[in-house]
């Protein structure tokens, strides 16, 4: 009976029914593709919101390259015509920090130096990056190295302020006083293939230093300060490499922890007046509005997703019932030639199960095959660097669920068909519909 039902699925126009169910399955699954993308954006924007709520950020200038010169021991005479100026590139010192700390509402000021460190890629990394970013050569210098963004933070800042807002996705964050260790961004992990436990060699002031990767994070800094391929290390360790006494240190980024969002506005105003060349951000209001927008978008996604699932389910049942009506004469014939009720029911059950399961399986395979491409196409490249977006599609929880839904729907359809068959006589069934 199973083989007869299987053959009948493909012999008759039920193959079209199967295709329709499959298309509905793919349409439903496509929305399942959107869900993890939207979820990961939401999670990270939320953590970013917490960061923006807690901190006023000050960004004093461009990322300072430390691979060719040591900014603290550099004099413009070394390179004729150079416009490099340490007070311009690293504008904040201890005096500024003391000044800011005394402002009303400021709890703590955390020092940060954001530098560029050179990394010599492997052949595989170079090939992969050339494939992904055809214009990568513009970012390579004459020595064939690539820039990494080296964010040097106070370990205390990490523990007291930044850490709760950084999503440490693997491993852990830096411990106070920990040397030769870095936490890397998810982008660096994804694009260059590093992960927790690996060592990453970085060139700082012409010397190569090997750092052990202890964690992978996402969402630590505003994007203006963090271009994505980032390693975070302890600030004091940087000064050791650069042969500078920490008390003589200078910084290009500060994180000013404020107690209350209401106090942040006068602080920002005062800082902008006092440091006109610095970028002072307090993005709470902006992020809050974005969150509201995103939240409303996510709710719409959810609504459409659930509605689509519901409509798909109803459509599958409806298609099967219409199919049953169209093949009424066939069922009448089975009755007329001596098939028992249980034979007809077993035939229908097998057919429903076959159609449901084949539809669900092929639908899932298609979604898995096209889901990655779909999510790649849906999410703009720039957004991928702003958020660590999950492209694991479809949601693994959905995979075992789909055949289950198909089976439940098949059984429902079967039950409806059973009620229909119970009322039919062979003569009635054999009538032209």
């Amino acid at each position, binding site marked *: 009976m199973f083989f007869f039902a299987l053959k*009948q699925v493909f012999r008759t126009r039920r193959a079209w029914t199967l295709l329709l169910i499959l298309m509905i399955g793919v349409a439903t699954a496509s929305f399942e593709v959107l869900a993890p993308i939207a979820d990961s954006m939401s999670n990270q924007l939320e953590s970013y919101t917490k960061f923006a709520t807690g901190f006023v950020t000050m960004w004093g200038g461009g990322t300072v390259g430390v691979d060719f010169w040591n900014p603290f021991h550099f004099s413009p005479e070394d390179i004729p015509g150079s416009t490099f100026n340490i007070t311009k590139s690293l504008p904040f010192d201890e005096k500024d920090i003391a000044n800011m700390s005394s402002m009303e509402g400021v709890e703590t000021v955390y020092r940060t130096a954001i530098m560029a460190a050179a990394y010599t890629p492997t052949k595989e990394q170079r090939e992969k990056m050339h494939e992904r970013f055809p214009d990568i050569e513009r970012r390579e210098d004459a020595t064939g190295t690539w820039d990494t963004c080296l964010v040097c933070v106070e370990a205390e800042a990490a523990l007291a302020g930044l850490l709760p807002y950084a999503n440490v996705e693997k491993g852990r964050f830096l411990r106070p006083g920990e040397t030769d260790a870095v936490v890397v961004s998810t982008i660096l992990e994804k694009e260059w293939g590093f992960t927790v436990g690996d060592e990453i060699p970085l060139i700082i002031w012409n010397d190569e230093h090997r750092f052990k990767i202890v964690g992978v994070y996402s969402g630590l800094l505003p994007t203006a300060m963090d271009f994505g391929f980032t390693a975070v290390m302890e600030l004091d360790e940087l000064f050791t490499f650069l042969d500078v006494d920490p008390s003589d240190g200078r910084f290009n980024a500060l994180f000013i922890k404020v107690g209350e969002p209401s106090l942040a506005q006068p602080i920002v105003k005062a800082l902008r007046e006092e440091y006109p060349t610095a970028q002072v951000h307090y993005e709470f209001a902006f992020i809050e509005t974005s969150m509201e927008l995103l939240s409303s978008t996510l709710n719409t996604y959810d609504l459409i997703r659930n509605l689509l699932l519901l409509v798909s389910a109803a459509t599958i049942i409806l298609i099967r019932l219409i199919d049953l009506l169209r093949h009424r004469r066939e069922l009448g014939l089975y*009755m007329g030639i001596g098939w028992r009720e249980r034979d007809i029911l077993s035939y229908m059950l097998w057919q429903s199960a076959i159609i449901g399961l084949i539809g669900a399986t092929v639908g899932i395979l298609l979604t898995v095959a096209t889901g990655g491409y779909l999510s790649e196409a849906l999410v703009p490249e720039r957004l991928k660097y702003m958020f660590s977006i999950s492209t694991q599609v479809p949601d693994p929880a959905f995979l075992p669920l789909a055949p289950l839904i198909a089976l439940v729907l098949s059984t429902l359809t079967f039950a409806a068909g059973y009620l229909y068959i119970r009322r039919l006589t062979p003569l009635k069934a054999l009538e032209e519909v």
Partner: protein
Amino acid sequence: MKPLAVILKGVSRSFKNVSIFRGVNLKVNWGEMAAVVGPSGVGKTTLLRIVGTLDRPTDGEVKVCGTDVNTLDRGGLAELRWSCLGFSFQEPVLLPGLTALDNVLLPCIPRVKSAKLRHFKKQAMMLLEALGLRDRIRFKPHQLSVGQKKRVDLARALINSPKVLIADEPTTNLDDESARIIAEMLKERLEEGSTILLATHQDQNLLSMASVRLGLQRTFPRVNDNPKLD
């Protein structure tokens, strides 16, 4: 004493209070051919469907193969159709996706284990061959003429070697060749001892084989010319 193959006693059928026939009596012995004759619309097909257990009478007693069909539930009727009856429809009902051979084998699908199906397959091929469809075995219904479809339908009715074969207008609207082949097959079955109940318009060839004739007319009462009926 062995019961008769078919007994109808005072059988009536009406649809929506319109009487099709009333008080029909008929007795058919084993190995006999009975012909239901009459013009179109007098209820020949309806009567055959009642005997074939596809329909129930509004009134009266119907016994087929010694079983009172009024006492049978749906399961019992299905068993009777498989074990005793073969029904050839007036308009052949074939499944479009199946070949002629598969259509003939259809009654066996749920009843016969796969090991024994081979035997039925052989029998189906012999039937189709005997009905002149040797080269059409793998053809699908849309590739067959009306006469050929009718022959496939008859082969399906014979696949379970029924004790009582019911054939509704087996030769009507067919070309001479198809009509001849079908008549020969019915004759052969009759000689082998099968009981046949058929409806026909005016096929003299078939009527000459029938030992019992039941004439249905538009006017009431219907006439039963079965001499053996009391």
